[in-house]
């Protein structure tokens, strides 16, 4: 790992699932022995309020419980019209651009950024500013220092937003949390809300952007499978999304843990204080569980993959993410059926240099 310490790497589906669901492994990124994946990770994390992602047991449960109703299957379904509007507006913008245009820039980044802005209830006039900041923080070629500055600006933006919601609650996730906290505890946990707003931003943005661009790339480079999917979009796009989630398994970073006691996994004893990376990618390509795992089959329809993680930390907003992807793919190929790649596949800049897989750019024409 970055600090020179070794960590166990789990690759079998069963082992990955059992570790991620086992309370004897901690998700606390500051705990001794926790695998450090990125330089500066520990320093950065120690300076900000604790994310839900980094909590265990009761603390995690207490932080997650009040928010889960926001992402229930029913609640997410009510967001459909608004997401459709966001996607349509982004496609309008794309269509105004000279060709070739970069799909990551016009769809991949703005759609998830607008979704987060919508969730946290950022006022309309501030949304372009917010969208600009979130795209810049993740863009290629941004230096570490610039990223830190943008991150400070974003933090200030969110903190001011939370403050204004506390004075004047609206109809959005943050306002509902504020009202609920006042009813239950008589006061507002500003630090907790700030961490929540940031989690929504960071967990919801880069990964969604990655899946949107990889998904469009997949459809464009597999015309036969695409035709089969689009013949019955309502039933088959959701299947295609599950397969893309499994096949690309774009993130492993959320699946690191540290053992709190000696635990035997798959015949090996992992000692207390040793770090573990549960490879979501490897689990989703385990031939014992998925037939021909290396083959992309958009109609496969297996949804027991662990692309959103497993255990109590499994992605909170996964169903929103699914709906967002579904609407993007359906609308994009319905409105621009002639969409195609503007460069050769080997010229595409895949994000091999990033903790979340995706594409830095996806030049398209139509």
């Amino acid at each position: 790992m970055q600090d020179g310490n070794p960590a166990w790497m789990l690759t079998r589906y069963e082992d990955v699932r059992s570790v991620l669901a086992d309370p004897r492994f901690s998700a606390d990124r500051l705990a001794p022995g926790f695998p450090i994946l990125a330089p500066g990770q520990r320093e950065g994390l120690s300076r900000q309020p604790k994310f839900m992602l980094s909590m265990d047991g009761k603390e995690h449960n207490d932080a997650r419980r009040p928010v889960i109703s926001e992402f229930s299957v029913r609640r997410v379904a009510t967001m459909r019209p608004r997401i459709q509007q966001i996607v349509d507006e982004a496609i309008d913008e794309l269509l105004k651009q000279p060709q070739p245009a970069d799909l990551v820039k016009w769809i991949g980044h703005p759609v998830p950024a607008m979704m987060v802005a919508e969730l946290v209830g950022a006022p309309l006039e501030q949304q372009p500013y917010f969208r600009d900041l979130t795209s810049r923080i993740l863009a290629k070629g941004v230096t570490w220092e610039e990223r830190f500055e943008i991150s400070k600006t974003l933090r200030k933006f969110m903190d001011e937003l939370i403050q204004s919601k506390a004075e004047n609650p609206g109809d959005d996730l943050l306002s509902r949390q504020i009202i609920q906290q006042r009813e239950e505890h008589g006061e507002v946990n500003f630090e907790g809300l700030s961490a929540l707003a940031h989690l929504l931003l960071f967990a919801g943005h880069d990964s969604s952007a990655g899946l949107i661009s990889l998904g469009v790339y997949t459809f464009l480079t597999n015309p036969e499978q695409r035709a089969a999917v689009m013949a019955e979009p309502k039933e088959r796009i959701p299947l295609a999304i599950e397969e893309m989630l499994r096949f690309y398994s774009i993130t492993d970073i959320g699946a690191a843990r540290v053992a709190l006691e000696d635990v035997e996994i798959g015949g090996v004893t992992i000692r207390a204080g040793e770090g573990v990376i549960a490879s979501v990618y490897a689990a989703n390509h385990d031939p014992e569980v998925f037939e021909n795992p290396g083959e992309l089959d958009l109609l496969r329809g297996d949804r027991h993959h662990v692309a959103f993680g497993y255990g109590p930390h499994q992605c909170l907003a996964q169903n929103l993410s699914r709906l967002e992807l579904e609407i993007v793919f359906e609308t994009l190929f319905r409105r621009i059926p002639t969409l195609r790649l503007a460069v050769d596949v080997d010229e595409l800049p895949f994000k091999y240099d990033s903790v979340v897989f995706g594409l830095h750019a996806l030049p398209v024409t139509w």
Partner: protein
Amino acid sequence: MRITTHAERCVGSGQCVLTEPAVFSQDDDGVVTLLTDRPEGPAAEGARKAVFVCPTRSLSLMED
């Protein structure tokens, strides 16, 4: 077959609802609820899958 839930462990991922909407639902707090605890036919098959995909093992299944 009989399904039982351990609602205190549920983290509201909605995997059960997506997998078998005829058996599972979520209440206003996002926590799993059952539409029936004795699914039959295709719903029983779906319920079996849902028990397997639940990330927190909040669902269990007893064969009659």
